[in-house]
């Protein structure tokens, strides 16, 4: 996975709270067995509405999705993150994220940028005033900015998630550094804990 430092480009404003992963990628798309090929499925039901934000001119070049609270709630499907990524979104900016979705983002190299409610409102106003405005998400500085509107907002991202995203780290390799600790832990587990019988 490639590291992600800075994302600059068009931002799309989807001003709604509780955007669930069933909307981001409907279940019919979950039958694919790879990690790519989900772009057409992204918000596919909502995209049938000609007024939907992704049907506006230039939206297909957007890299930044700005949305409402509790983004990515519902199903754990990581396909939601793959669909956002396949479409071209490298970051989602929202006042809060569902827990599983946030982890999935970091593990798939998409930046979950959690801004304050007030910061979110300022970003939405700036994008309402100028939908073509360029936005910049800086992972190292943990900021999202719309320079033409003079708006810069800090976002929350744990140090570890930031490191993972910046470096594009192989999470499993990091864990395997603790191989000895895992072995020691396993040696101490009660023997009556269930193990699944073969076959």
């Amino acid at each position: 996975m490639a590291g992600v430092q800075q994302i600059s480009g068009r931002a799309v404003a989807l001003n709604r709270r509780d955007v669930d992963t069933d909307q981001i990628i409907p279940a019919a798309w979950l039958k694919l067995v790879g990690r790519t090929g989900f772009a057409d499925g992204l918000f596919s039901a909502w995209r049938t509405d000609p007024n939907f934000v992704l049907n506006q001119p230039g939206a297909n070049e957007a890299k930044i999705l700005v949305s409402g609270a509790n983004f990515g709630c519902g199903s754990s499907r990581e396909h939601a993150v793959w669909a956002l990524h396949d479409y071209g979104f490298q970051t989602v900016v929202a006042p809060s994220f569902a827990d599983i979705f946030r982890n999935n983002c970091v593990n798939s190299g998409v930046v979950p940028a959690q801004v304050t409610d007030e910061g979110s409102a300022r970003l939405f106003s700036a994008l309402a005033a100028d939908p073509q405005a360029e936005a910049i998400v800086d992972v190292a500085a943990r900021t999202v900015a719309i320079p033409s509107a003079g708006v810069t907002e800090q976002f929350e991202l744990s140090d570890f998630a930031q490191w993972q995203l910046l470096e594009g780290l192989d999470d499993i390799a990091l864990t395997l550094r603790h191989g000895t600790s895992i072995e020691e832990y396993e040696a101490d587990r009660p023997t009556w804990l269930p193990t699944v019988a073969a076959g």
Partner: protein
Amino acid sequence: MTAQRLFDKVWERHVVASPDGEPALLYIDLHLIHEVTSPQAFEGLDLAGREVRRPDLTLATMDHDVPTIGIDKPIEDPMAAEQIARLRDNCAKHNITLHALGSVEQGIVHVIGPQLGLTQPGMTVVCGDSHTSTHGAFGALAFGIGTSEVEHVLATQTLRQTKPAGMAVNVTGDLPRGCTAKDLALGIIRTLGTGGGVGSVIEYRGPAISALSMEGRMTVCNMSIEGGARAGMIAPDDTTFAFLEGRKYSPKGAEWEGALDLWRGLVTDPGAHFDHEITVDAAALRPAVTWGTNPAQSVSIDDQVPDPAAFTTPALQQLAERALTYMDLTPGTAIRDISVDTVFIGSCTNGRLEDLREAAEVVRGRKVYPGVRALVVPGSARVKEAAEAEGLDRYFTDAGFEWRSAGCSMCLGMNGDILAPGERSASTSNRNFEGRQGPGGRTHLVSPAVAAATAVAGHFSAPGDL
């Protein structure tokens, strides 16, 4: 010693390492997998040349997109067939036990784990499915994960996790007659809101929780995720132990006694502090029906469709307006005046034997309303078998219900059991999101008893209305 919460006790027992500046590394006691969220994880494992560390702590089943009719025939949907073939190959290659379609142990992951006695108090349980919170009913720490995390668990049997906050949901009073665990779950989520539990592990507490059967506790914990919670837990007690005793994977003999000693300590200590706390009065609840497009948007069956203007914030008002447009409902309409096209009884929320008994009791000797399509999809092949042994299947089929084989079915509509655009359902599942049960479908979440009564009446009804 500091007073600890149930959740702290389970968490601490599973910390393998807590390196500076990194989330803790937690050991995973049980990893459940299914066909939909695992193929990419196995592919990643294979590409990196990694092995499954603990196939003996991993169990696979087929549930999300399996057919629920004609299960002895080849799967017609080529994509589902491919996904299922992948799971079979991956399990064979990595020596993972698979309860395949047609096996008597097959079923929805969250139904089969407890049924086999694999889910035990104090364990950590994960699965690439958000409703893994179900297993918290046993005092396990159980949560849903994404596919990258599935791969991580396969390779390391651990997960890196930031410790969530602890939330108490105190349920006071007794559930009134006619109210079920589902009505309680929907009532809790109505209070909590869709995002109220984000970043927290909920512990459900109070007399109404202790009074629930294990099936009811599973229903409540199952829906924790609909309030945004990372997990939901209930302290194990004699009800829990009675459920577990004698099951296939439960400890036996002296080990059972030892386990009991340990499990009895899995309670929140007096004086322990919760980061967040809410109280729900069970006695004030009535059978619940959702009217909107998220599980927090519910009212009592005696109420009317609400007016969006009555909501407290502009965001909630906007959400309610949008939901009513999607649901094609008018504020002020009595819930009982809303007719349905389809009734679905099943899912990891309400697909267990007790749920089917509740519904069967209502439909027994009655008929499904003309033109209503009604389905019962048992949560597992064992549930189906047990229901048939009690004759429940005949109550359903005599009434005009379809009696299907086990799977997730219309809860998420991956297998062809779906609503047509514009169709309205009464469903015992967990999510009423737009299009959840099929593009353009309109879902109302209810208990099994209300679903059954609604099937008979053709419009939303409680058993007492019939």
